[in-house]
C-alpha cells in the first residue's frame, strides 16, 4: 500500500515539477520520496521506476495519439528502431530508469544517516 501511494505521489509531484523546472527535476522528486518514505530498497526503486515510467509513458502516449504518430515514426527512423511504439517505450524506460535510480539513491542516502 505504501509502495502504491509513494508511486502516485511521485507521479503527481514529478508532473508538476516538469512543468516548472528542467527535465531532471523528476530525479529530485523521486529522490525526495525515496528518502522520506522508508520503503524497502527494492520497493523504493520500483516506486521511482514505475512513477516516472508511467508518467512519461502516459504523456508521450497521449501526445503521440493526438499527433497520429507523425513524429514518433520519424524519431523511430532517427533512432534506428523498427516501430514507433518502441520509440515511446524507450522514452518511457529512460524516464523510468532515472526515476528508479533516483528513488533508490534516496532510500540509500536515508540509510546512511538513519538506521
Amino acid at each position, binding site marked *: 500500500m505504501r509502495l502504491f501511494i509513494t508511486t502516485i505521489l511521485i507521479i503527481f509531484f514529478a508532473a508538476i515539477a*516538469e512543468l516548472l523546472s528542467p*527535465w531532471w527535476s523528476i530525479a529530485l522528486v523521486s529522490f525526495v520520496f525515496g528518502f522520506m518514505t522508508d520503503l524497502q530498497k527494492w520497493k523504493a526503486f520500483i516506486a521511482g521506476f514505475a512513477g516516472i515510467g508511467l508518467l512519461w509513458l502516459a*504523456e508521450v502516449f497521449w501526445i503521440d495519439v493526438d499527433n497520429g504518430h507523425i513524429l514518433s515514426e520519424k524519431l*523511430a527512423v532517427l533512432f534506428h528502431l523498427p516501430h514507433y511504439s518502441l520509440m515511446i517505450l524507450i522514452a518511457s524506460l529512460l*524516464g523510468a530508469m532515472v526515476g528508479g*535510480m533516483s528513488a*533508490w539513491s534516496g532510500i*540509500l*542516502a536515508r540509510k546512511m544517516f538513519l538506521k
Partner: protein
Amino acid sequence: MKYLFMRIFAGLFVCALTITFIFFLDKPLGNMPAIGKLLDPIKGCWVAAEPVNKNIDASFGLPGLQQEAIVWFDERLVAHIQAANDHDLYFIQGYIHAYFRLWQMDMETRAAAGRISEVAGEKALTFDRTQRRKGMVYGAENSLTAMESEPHTKTMIDAYTAGVNKYISSLRYWELPIEYKLMNFKPEQWTNIKTALLLKYMADDLTGYSEDIPLTILRDSLPSSDFNLLFPEKIAEATPVIPTGTVFAKPSLPALQTPNDTVWAHFKMSDFTMSRAEGVGSNSWAISGINTSNGWPILCNDPHLALNLPSLWYEVQLTAPGIDVYGVSLPGAPGVIIGFNDNIAWGFTNNYRDVKDHYLIKPVNNNNKMYWYAGRQMSFSERIEHIQIKGQADFTDTVKYTIHGPVMYDENFEGPGGLKKAIAVCWTGHQATNELLSIYCLNRANDYAAFTDAIIHFECPGQNMVYADRVGNIAMWGQGKFVHKWKGQGRFVMNGADSSASWKDYIPMHENPHVLNPPCGYVSSANQETTDSTYPYWYIGYFKEFRAWRINSLLSSLKHATVQDMFRLQNDTYSILAASVLPDMLNYLPVSLTEDEMKYYEELKKWDYYLRPTSIAATIFQIWWEKLYQNIWQDNFEHIPVKIWPSNERTMQLIKRDSSSKFFNNWKTLAVEHLRDVVSLSYIETIDSIYKLEKGNKTEWYKAKNTAITHLAKLQAFSFNEIKIGGWGNAINAATNDHGPSWRMVVQAGNEMDAYGIYPGGQSGNPGSKYYSDFIADWAQGKYYHLHILKEKNRGKPKNMKYKWEIKVQ
C-alpha cells in the same frame, strides 16, 4: 560499525552513479544530442508532435505593430495576411515565416554566409571557406547597402526583420523547432544582412555555376577543331526563349574588339592535382488568349530547384492598401517572388547567361601584398574571415580582393581539379543590386509598363521573366544585369593583369532580349538559349535545350488550351532525347541478340518515350544512354582533371549526324571502334545493370532514379525517398534524383484570376506537423490545388478559410 561503513559506501556509490547517469543524459556527446533532455515529454522533442486537429485560431497583441491586422489560414495553412499598411504587412510576414520556418531560415542564411561549421562542426569547414572565398558575405553587404538606401525596401526589410525577431524573442527553449534540439544550438537575432544573404544564396544557386576553368583546360589541350565541334558556343537548332524572328533594337553600345591572345590565361596539367563536378533548370510559358479556349491568356511556371524539406517556398497572400498579391515567398525574405495579383501574373526561370568570370592573378614577385594590373603594381585589399567551428578553435582565412573581385582559389584553397593558381572571381552577384525593390514593385504592378519598370531592378540572378495580364498581353524578358562583352570575353579564364579583360559597360536594361505578344501566340522558356544570333550583343551561358524543344513543339500545335491542358503539359514526361536517339541506338544493335537481350530490346521497341514512374523501358533507356555517354567520352577526357564532357544535346547530335566521328573510337584499345560497337558494348553493360536492379526489385523508373526530397540537415528520418514521380532532367517534368519542379503554377487571367499551384512540401517546417509534407503525394501525381484568393474583408469567416489570427496593437 562495519555495516555503517557498508551503508555509507553503498549510498555514496549509488548516488554518484545516479548523478553521473543524469549528467550524461543532460549533456550532448559528440554529435549526439542530450538524450534525456531530448526525450523529455514536456520540453523535449515531443513538443514538436503537433496534434493533427490542432486549432491555431488565436488573438494576441504584437508590440511593434502599427494597426490591427488579420491573418486567415486556409485548409492547407496558406496564410492570407490582411494588414493596414506596408510596415505591418512585412512585419507579419516576417513573424509568420519565423513561426513556421525559423530553423530553415536560420540554416539557409548560415549556409549563405559560410557559418555552418558553427553548428555542424569541422566537416562543414571546406563548404564555409568556399562560401566566404566566393564573396557571399561581401556581395550581401553590398546589396544590403542598396536595400537600406532605398526607402521602400528599407521599410520592407526593417519591418520584416522586426517581425522575425518578435517571434524569436517570444520563444522559450521547449518551443524551439526540433532541429535546434537535435543539433543543440539556439536561434540568434535576425538582421537585415541575413535577408540579403538569403537572396545571394539564391543568386549563387542560379548563377554560381561556371565552366571557365575546365573549358580553359580543354581549349589548351584539344585541337581547336575538336574543341569547337564538341563545345560549340551556341548549340545548333536551338529554339530560343525570345522567338526567332523577333526584331531587336539597334544596340546603343558600340561593338567591342576582341583583344589579342595575351588576354587569356593558360594552365599546364601540372597546375592541377585532382577532380570535382554539376546544374538546374526550369520551365515557364504563357499562352495568349488567341490560343486558349476561353480567350484569356494562361501563364505557367515551374522553377526547378533542389528538392528539400522544409520546402524552399512558403505560399502566402499579402494584402494591404496598394497591394493584393498571391504566390510563393522565400522564408527569410519579404514579398512574393513568383505569383500574381488582380491584374498580372509572372514567373521566373533561370536565364543561365554567364555572369561570372575568372581571372588568373599575377602576384608581384616576393611581395604577397601586391599583384599586377595594367602594367602597375596594385595592392590586394584583405578581408579576414573568422569561421567558428563547433567544438574547436576558430579558423581564420584571409581572402585577398583584387580589382576584379575576391581571389577564390590560391595555394591555400585549391580550385576545381586541385588547381593551385590564384584565381579571382568577378560576379554580378557581388554588386550592390536590389532585387527586393523589383519584388516590391512587381507585387504591386498592374500593367505591362509597371511590370517592365519593376523588373529593371532585378539584376542578379538573371531570369527569364514570363508575364501575362488581364488585358490579354503575354511577354517574356531575358532580364538581368549583363556585361557588354567583346566576343569571347569570360568564356575562359582571363589574364587578370590585362585591363582589356576587365568588365566595363553594362548593357542597358531596356536592350535586354524581350518580346511582347509574339505572332505565334505564346512565349516559353526552359533554360535554353535566350536569343538567336541576331541579338546584337555577344553572350554565352549554360543553356539546355531538350525541354524547350518539347515545350515549343507542344505549344506550337496547341489550340483552345485550358488550364487542364497546362497541368498535363507541366507533368509531361516525354523524353525528346529518347525519341530522337533511341531508334538509332536500336538500329546499331547486332541482329543476333541473346534471349535476355531480346527481351529488353522488345521492351524498348514498343516504348512510347514517356518516362512514366512505373516504366521499365524508361529505366533501360536512361541507363543505356548514361553508359553510352560514358563510353563515348570517358577515354577522350580522362586526362582532364575536371570532369567536363560535351552536353547531352551535342552528343545526341553527333550520334545522329556524324556516326563515323573519330570520337566513337576508344583510343585506349588497339582495335578501331565504330558507333555500332560503342552502342552494343553499352547495351550489354545496361543489361547487366538491369539484372542487378531486378534483384533489388528496382527496375521501375521511379525506383531506379530515386527522386528524394531531403531534409536540409540531411536527416533521413525527416526526408522522403523514392517519390513515385516520372520524368527526368530532359523531360518537362524534370524530377531528377534531387532536383525537380519546386512550384508548379498555372494562372489564367480573367475578370478574376483563376490560379492553381503546388509545391513538393508543406506549409509547416515542423517534421512533427501534418502540414510538413502533405503536398508531396499530390505533387508527385501531378495534382494541383485551386488557390484561394481571399477578397472578403469582413469579420465573418470567409469561404475556404479555416483558422484566424487577430493581431492587435500592443
